[in-house]
C-alpha cells in the first residue's frame, strides 16, 4: 500500500519508519492503560535509534573507500558506547560503566579479533564493521540483562547474603548463587535465537546475502556462524561481567555494599 503512495526510496523509507513507530506507540498506549509508563523511554530510544542508524549509514557510505584499519576505531567507539548504554541498566551498582565496557571489550572484542584473524570475518570495512557491530550489540544486551538480573537478585536476597557472611562465608561465595542465576538468565535470548534459527525466524543477514546473490546454503551456514559468534561473545561478556560485579558488590572487609537504600 505504501509503495503506491510513495515512489522515492527515501520517502518510502520514512513512511515505513513512521508506520513501524506507530505500531510501537500503540503498544505503549496499551501499557499505559495498565499503569505501565514507557512513553518517555520509548520515545527517546526510537528517536535516538533512528538518528544513530541514519548517521552510521551515512558514515559507512563515506567509509566505503576508507582503509580497513579504520574499522578498529569504529568498533572501539561502539564498545565504549555499548558500555555506557548497558551501565544505565545497573543503577546503584559500583563501577557499572567500567565493568560493562571491560566485559563487552573482553567478550565481543576478543571474538571479533579471533574470528577476523582466523578468516571467519572478512577484513573489508563493509563486512567487519556490520558483523562486529552485531556482536557488540548482542554482547551489550546480554550484559544489560546480566547486570540487571544480578542487581535484582542481590537486592532480593540481602538477608540470605548477610546470613552467609555472618556464618563465615567470604563475599564471593555469598553471592555465588546469584552470579550463576544472572549468567544463565542473560543467555536465554542468545540460546533461544540459536535454537529457533530457521524455524521461528530468518535473520536479516541471511536475507541480505540472498538478495545480494549469495548461494542459499552458504548464506544459511554463514548465518549460523554469526549466531554462534554472537553466543560466544555474549557468553564471554556475561561471564566476565558477573564475575567482575561479584567482587564490586562487596567491600574489602567482606560486607555487602549493594543495599536497597542505595
Amino acid at each position, binding site marked *: 500500500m505504501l509503495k503506491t503512495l510513495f515512489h522515492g526510496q527515501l520517502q518510502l523509507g520514512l513512511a515505513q519508519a513512521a508506520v513501524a513507530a506507530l505500531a510501537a506507540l500503540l503498544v505503549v498506549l496499551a501499557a499505559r492503560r495498565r499503569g505501565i509508563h514507557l512513553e518517555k523511554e520509548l520515545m527517546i530510544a526510537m528517536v535516538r535509534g533512528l538518528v544513530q542508524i541514519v548517521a552510521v549509514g551515512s558514515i559507512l557510505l563515506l567509509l566505503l573507500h576508507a582503509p580497513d584499519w579504520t574499522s578498529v576505531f569504529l568498533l572501539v567507539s561502539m564498545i565504549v558506547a555499548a558500555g555506557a548504554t548497558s551501565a544505565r541498566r545497573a543503577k546503584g551498582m559500583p563501577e557499572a560503566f567500567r565493568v560493562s565496557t571491560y566485559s563487552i571489550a573482553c567478550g565481543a572484542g576478543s571474538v571479533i579479533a579471533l574470528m577476523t584473524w582466523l578468516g571467519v570475518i572478512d577484513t573489508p570495512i563493509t563486512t567487519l564493521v556490520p558483523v562486529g557491530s552485531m556482536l557488540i550489540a548482542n554482547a551489550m544486551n546480554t550484559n544489560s540483562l546480566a547486570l540487571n538480573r544480578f542487581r535484582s537478585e542481590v537486592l532480593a536476597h540481602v538477608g540470605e547474603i548477610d546470613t552467609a557472611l555472618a*556464618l*563465615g562465608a567470604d563475599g564471593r561465595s555469598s553471592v555465588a548463587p546469584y552470579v550463576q542465576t544472572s549468567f544463565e538468565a542473560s543467555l536465554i535470548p542468545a540460546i533461544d535465537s540459536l535454537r529457533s534459527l530457521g524455524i521461528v525466524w530468518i535473520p536479516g543477514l541471511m536475507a541480505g546475502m540472498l538478495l545480494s546473490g549469495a548461494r542459499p546454503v552458504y548464506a544459511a551456514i554463514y548465518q549460523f556462524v554469526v549466531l554462534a559468534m554472537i553466543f560466544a561473545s555474549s557468553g564471554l561478556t556475561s561471564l566476565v561481567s558477573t564475575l567482575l560485579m561479584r567482587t564490586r558488590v562487596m567491600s574489602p572487609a567482606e560486607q555487602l555494599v549493594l543495599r536497597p537504600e542505595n
Partner: protein
Amino acid sequence: MGAHLQSDAVLLRAEHLGRSVPGKILVADATFDVHRGETLAIVGPSGSGKTSLLRLLNRLDEPTSGTEFLDGADYRQLAPPELRRRVGMVMQRPYLFPGTVAENLRFGPRQRGEEMPDDQVDKLLAGVGLVGYAARNVAYLSGGEAQRVSFARTLANAPEVLLLDEPTSALDDDAKAEVEGLMQKVVRERGLTCVLVTHDSAQAARLAKRALLLEAGRIVRDGPVGEVPGA
C-alpha cells in the same frame, strides 16, 4: 542466661564505635564491655540503632569511627570470616538456605574446609530439640523450627560470642516461649557470651542481668536490667 556465673574477664570491648551514613547517624560513640559468660541486653525504641550496633560487633557493617577488641585483639586485624565465626549471629528471620537441615548446619564449617560428621549434626539438633530432623527439607519447617535450625547453624561454628538480633520477634507466642527457653538453656550449658537485641523488656529481664539503653544511636544508660528504663 542471667543465672550463669560471670567471669571478670572482658571478652568483647567496643571503643567509641560509631557508624553514620549520609544524612544520618546510626550509632554514635558506643563504648562498653561484655564480660566472658555475660548476657548483655540492648534495648531501646524502634529506630534507636540497636540492630545497627549489633551489626558493627561482627563487622557486617563497617564502623565509621572507633573499633572493637575481641579477647584483647583489635577486630580490624582479624580476617572478617574468622571474626564472624568467633562472633556468631542469629538474625531476626532465620534465612535458611535451600536444602536439608543438615546441609544448613554444615554451611559454616564448610567455609573453612571442614566437613561436620553426622553424629555432630545429630548432637547439635538434639541440643535444640530437633532430633531426627537432619534429612528434612527446610522448606517444610514451621517458623519456630526454622529459627531453632538457624540457632543450631550458628552454634555449629562454635562461636565465642553470640549476637542475638530479636531472635523471637517474628514468632507466635508459643514458638517464642519455646525458642527463648531453648536458647537460655543452650547458652547456660555452654557458658556463652551473648549480646541480645530486644524490644521486649520482659525478655530482657528474663535473659540478661545487664542492659544498655539506646536512643538515637547513643547509649544513654548502662546498668543492671532493673535500673534501665525499657529493660
